């Protein structure tokens, strides 16, 4: 009964992985070579994309986790209309198509018609419209904000599920011991949530590294190389420049990176369970 699954895995995972590895070590004539890897490490854009990916992942993940946690705590307090609030707040951004979300945020940031600028100016926070996507730093901030909106729901949903499994007695015991609301949060909720936190952190980190449509739609990796991450660069190499071998090599570098992150997280989790 295991055979079909093994076959599917071999066809769709192992075969593709191996063909990608073979491709990364050959040149366009089919000869074995290391030049794809050498050209990546000689390429200045590669180091720029590593830096950008780090900023993108750090900003997006910390924002998503924090916002997700806040929303989960708040939603946990609501007793009436649970289903309505949960579906609106948690499902809506998550269920929006990537491309739709990208186009929507691009229009919201627009500096001639954008609704965001309009609101900020009417609130008196800014004197004039600001061109959100016009400089590399602002563009990075803008895509991170959009990605936090797009992704906080998933961590929120995990956290909400985690919070609801915490036994009520723990809070009661803490209250008897004289812990205030913050103390209860810090000493009961957070330690109890830790396994969920670690898993969520690992998943969001990996997803954010590999997440591509939002940046592609909003900035296309620009201005200059301001928002070019490793994945947008791989896309550009293979689909714009048709440099399949170099793109394959870069994909393998990315695969190793993601694999290492996943390995470190799982090892940490396994140790915690053992302890």
């Amino acid at each position, binding site marked *: 009964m295991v055979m079909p699954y093994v076959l599917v895995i071999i066809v769709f995972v192992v075969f593709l992985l191996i063909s990608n590895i073979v491709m990364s070590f050959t040149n366009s004539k089919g000869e074995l070579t290391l030049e794809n890897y050498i050209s990546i490490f000689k390429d200045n854009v590669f180091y720029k994309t590593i830096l950008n990916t780090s900023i993108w992942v750090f900003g997006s993940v910390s924002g998503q986790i924090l916002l997700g946690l806040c929303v989960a705590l708040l939603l946990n307090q609501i007793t009436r209309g649970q289903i309505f609030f949960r579906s609106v707040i948690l499902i809506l951004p998550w269920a929006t198509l990537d491309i739709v979300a990208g186009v929507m945020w691009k229009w919201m940031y627009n500096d001639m018609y954008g609704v965001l600028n309009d609101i900020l100016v009417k609130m008196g926070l800014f004197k004039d419209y600001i061109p959100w*996507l*016009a400089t590399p730093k602002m563009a990075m901030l803008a895509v991170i904000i959009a990605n936090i909106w797009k992704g906080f729901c998933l961590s929120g949903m995990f956290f909400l599920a985690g919070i609801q499994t915490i036994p009520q007695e723990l809070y009661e015991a803490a209250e008897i011991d004289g812990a205030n609301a913050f103390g209860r949060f810090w000493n009961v909720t957070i330690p109890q949530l830790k396994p969920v936190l670690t898993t969520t952190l690992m998943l969001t980190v990996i997803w954010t590294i590999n997440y591509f449509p939002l940046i592609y739609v909003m900035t296309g990796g*620009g201005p200059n190389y301001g928002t070019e991450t490793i994945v947008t660069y791989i896309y550009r190499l293979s*689909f714009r420049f048709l440099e*399949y071998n170099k793109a394959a090599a870069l994909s393998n570098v990315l695969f190793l990176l993601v694999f290492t992150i996943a390995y470190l997280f799982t090892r940490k989790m396994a140790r915690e369970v053992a302890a």
Partner: protein
Amino acid sequence: MKKSVLSIVLIVIAVLSFGKTLTIWVGGQVAELDETWNSVIKGFEQKYGIKVEVQLFGFDTYYDKLVTALQAGKGPDLAFADLGGWVPTFAEKGWLEPMEEQLKNWEGTPQIWPNLWPTVTYKGVRYGLPWYTDCRLLLYNKTMFEQAGLDPNDPPKTWSELLTAAQKITDAKNRVYGYGVSGTKTEHTTLGYMMFLYAAGGKLLTDDYSRAAFNTPEGLKALKFYTDLAKSYAVSPNAIQYHEDDYRNMMAQNRVAMSIGGPWSFPLIEAANPKIVGKYSVALHPYDSQPASVLGGWALVIPRTSPNKEDAWKLAAYLTSFDVWMKWVEEKGGPMPTRMDVCTKSKLANDPKWQVIFKTFPYAVARPPIPQYPQVSEQIQIMVQRVLLNELTPEEAIKVAAENVNKILGAK
């Protein structure tokens, strides 16, 4: 025995009927005209008795789709390819069937505009049949000209006239601008810079495409003027974020008075604002030392893996025949045919907008038809962006870009 005969017959029938269906992939703007395609294809099916399946793709997804299919050897029998460097790029990968033999014997070959052939040639061999074309012009809004006290029938002809007109129209406080400078990290920016580069008497690459040729006083002058329109003179919306398609929509709303456009803009600007009919026009784009334009368009190519190459050529020749093109133009009024005889004999010859186009077309240059073109184009985009972002001076940016382009082309 009976069973095996039956199955062989069935297989033969299956193979034959399968082999008689031609697939054609249509991308770009003409892909939106599905009804016209149906009637044109029906004519072919009746004439040759070959079934044709037409698949239409929007421009945004078409390139990825086609490249993936060709790479996998699963392409159609006949496909549209953009004249902006796709044909030589695909030919270098060995994905296309040469068309040299068929073109030599075909009646229509001498009728194709001669400046189109380099766009489908790789190493001296022609791999495509140009089907429709266009050239870039100045698209402008007559209402905004009138409001600023300018003559709507006398658009600017030189760079200094362009600047004066744009400054008169610009009212930055109310977000009204004279000219739209494309500065996004897309092909539009390269095309915009090329318009100014050739108008200053410069060139993108040397004639044999072996190295950069824009690092000259003319190239620098073009880069400075192009970026200054947005930076120092501030007659354009924030250039980093917009390109000519955005400006066309702003023009439909009377926000931007001039930008680069062409024959393809007419239906699109009228779709954005139906009231603008008759209130916009085109002219030769303002120039510095010589009139200039960049041509674009689409060619028909036959993928090497197609099992029906002969029929595919029949379809390509049929689509590019005089009769089919005349019918197309009578019904649709565009796009611009690659056949000179259709241009002079159809109703287009009497339309003033099309007269401007036919007059400009001989000045139009093609983008370098080389496989490395996408990388070269990216360097131009980054050069313009670095100047717009004040990261580099025009002198530094053009030097860096030329060095990178030479590296890409393998020049010493």
